[in-house]
């Protein structure tokens, strides 16, 4: 009873108001209170999902986006973590360049997409490079933070047991830094996905972002609305997977 009142009822109200909104919009569009060229009926948007998957090869587009994100993620990991290790081991390098990495993380790199377009051409390479540039900085920062944040007493324990430097790294430093590294990877991959879909839309190439742009340029309004909804769903699912993946890895790494 209490569970129903406090947990399920609000969720039901949330979903119901979404359905109500769709119904009201449907009626307003059908009675021409809203210009049907601006807003397609929700039923036609819902109906075009099948078309997106079939005629528009939605799954292949999803695959293209996924491949770009995957390539960028691999690059981010194999570059980000070693660079972070280098910064951690060389105190002077870290003192000099950690703030540069922080500036890179804060810089609105996506605005420079025309530049990347010129340098790398209108190809998926541009998208991967931009996604890499957007995602690598948080991985570096969080990894350095993870190593720097290892409690000194743990290192002392290792020293007192006379571990070799490599044992110290594999048995103490790395496991202690893992949670922070995973946080960095999650952030980096989120930025990568956002950049991939955004740049696909902007430069009109690749997977899902490209699909939205194409449908919009064709004035296929129900299709555009459906494709945007689809991308929102994909990113929500991607983030949820990353979050539970991070939790699972952090637990099993203990």
């Amino acid at each position, binding site marked *: 009873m209490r569970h129903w009142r406090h947990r399920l*009822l609000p969720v039901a109200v949330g979903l119901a108001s979404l359905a109500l909104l769709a119904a009201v919009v449907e009626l307003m569009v059908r009675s021409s209170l809203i210009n049907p060229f601006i807003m397609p009926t929700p039923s036609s948007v819902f109906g075009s999902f099948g078309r997106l998957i079939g005629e528009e090869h939605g799954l292949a587009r999803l695959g293209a986006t996924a491949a770009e994100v995957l390539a960028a993620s691999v690059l981010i990991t194999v570059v980000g973590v070693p660079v972070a290790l280098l910064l951690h081991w060389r105190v002077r390098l870290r003192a000099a360049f950690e703030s540069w990495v922080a500036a890179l993380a804060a810089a609105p790199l996506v605005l420079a997409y025309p530049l990347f377009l010129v340098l790398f051409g209108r190809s998926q390479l541009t998208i991967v490079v931009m996604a890499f540039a957007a995602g690598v900085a948080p991985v570096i920062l969080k990894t350095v933070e993870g190593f720097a944040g290892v409690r000194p007493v743990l290192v002392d324990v290792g020293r007192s047991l006379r571990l070799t430097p490599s044992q110290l790294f594999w048995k103490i430093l790395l496991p202690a830094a893992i949670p922070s590294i995973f946080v960095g990877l999650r952030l980096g991959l989120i930025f990568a996905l956002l950049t991939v879909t955004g740049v696909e839309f902007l430069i009109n190439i690749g997977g899902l972002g490209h699909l939205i742009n194409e449908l919009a340029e064709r004035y296929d309004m129900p299709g555009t609305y459906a494709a*945007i909804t689809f991308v929102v769903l994909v990113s929500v699912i991607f983030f949820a997977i990353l979050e539970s993946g991070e939790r699972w890895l952090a637990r099993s790494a203990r």
Partner: protein
Amino acid sequence: MAGKVGAMKKKTWLRAEVGASRAIACLVLLALWQAIALSGLFFQDVVPSIDRVLFAFWSVLADPLFYRNLGVTFGEMLVSLAVGCSTGLAAGLALGGSPFLSRAYEHFLHYLGSAPKIIFFPLMILWFGVGPGSKVGMGVISCFFPVAISVAAGMRAVNPVWIRVGRSFRASPLQMVTKVYLPAMRTPILNGFRLGVGVAIIGVLLAETKLSNQGLGFMVMQSYSRFDMPRMYALLIIVIAMAVAFNTLAMRLAGSKP
């Protein structure tokens, strides 16, 4: 005493070393750029030499058109910040104040807030036209979500004892908001605004590069399509510097360190 002096000496020495390695890194990067530009490795002007970029920089700053477009972008940004921050604040206060509303609607906010915003641009064009309206729309939807989410979370984090104190002195609901909640939430509200400012600028400028006939983003794309690379580099430097400056300013105002 001697140890202290030694430590200080070591510190200044480290600082000098840091400065030196940064300067060397800068020089190496610039030299690399210049070498690539002069080598002709890339097609034509793809990597213009530094002196030509500097010259383009100068001519952009001397161009009255630049200031007109700067004004357009600036205006779009101010309107979208005003609308986005105020609606975000209102939505955040409603969600943070009511557990019911939060459970019913806040997850939608998180879903929409975590999606890339630029993909909504076709809708903005449909609703608000190809002019400044759609750019303001982009700025607003970029700004709204981080502000609303940060304010809602901040409101829930207000120390409950302050709320009890307010109630025990029989403050009215309005007094509770103005005298307890808002001052207690200063940091999360300003933090939300800071995040909002950062993404609103990106939203407006990206929208301008995608489809427009005025504004800084339009100028960038114009020089891109004319293949005037030095000018495009100069404009991109200006645009990014502006976005960073705005972000830093907002951070200063929010009282947090950059």
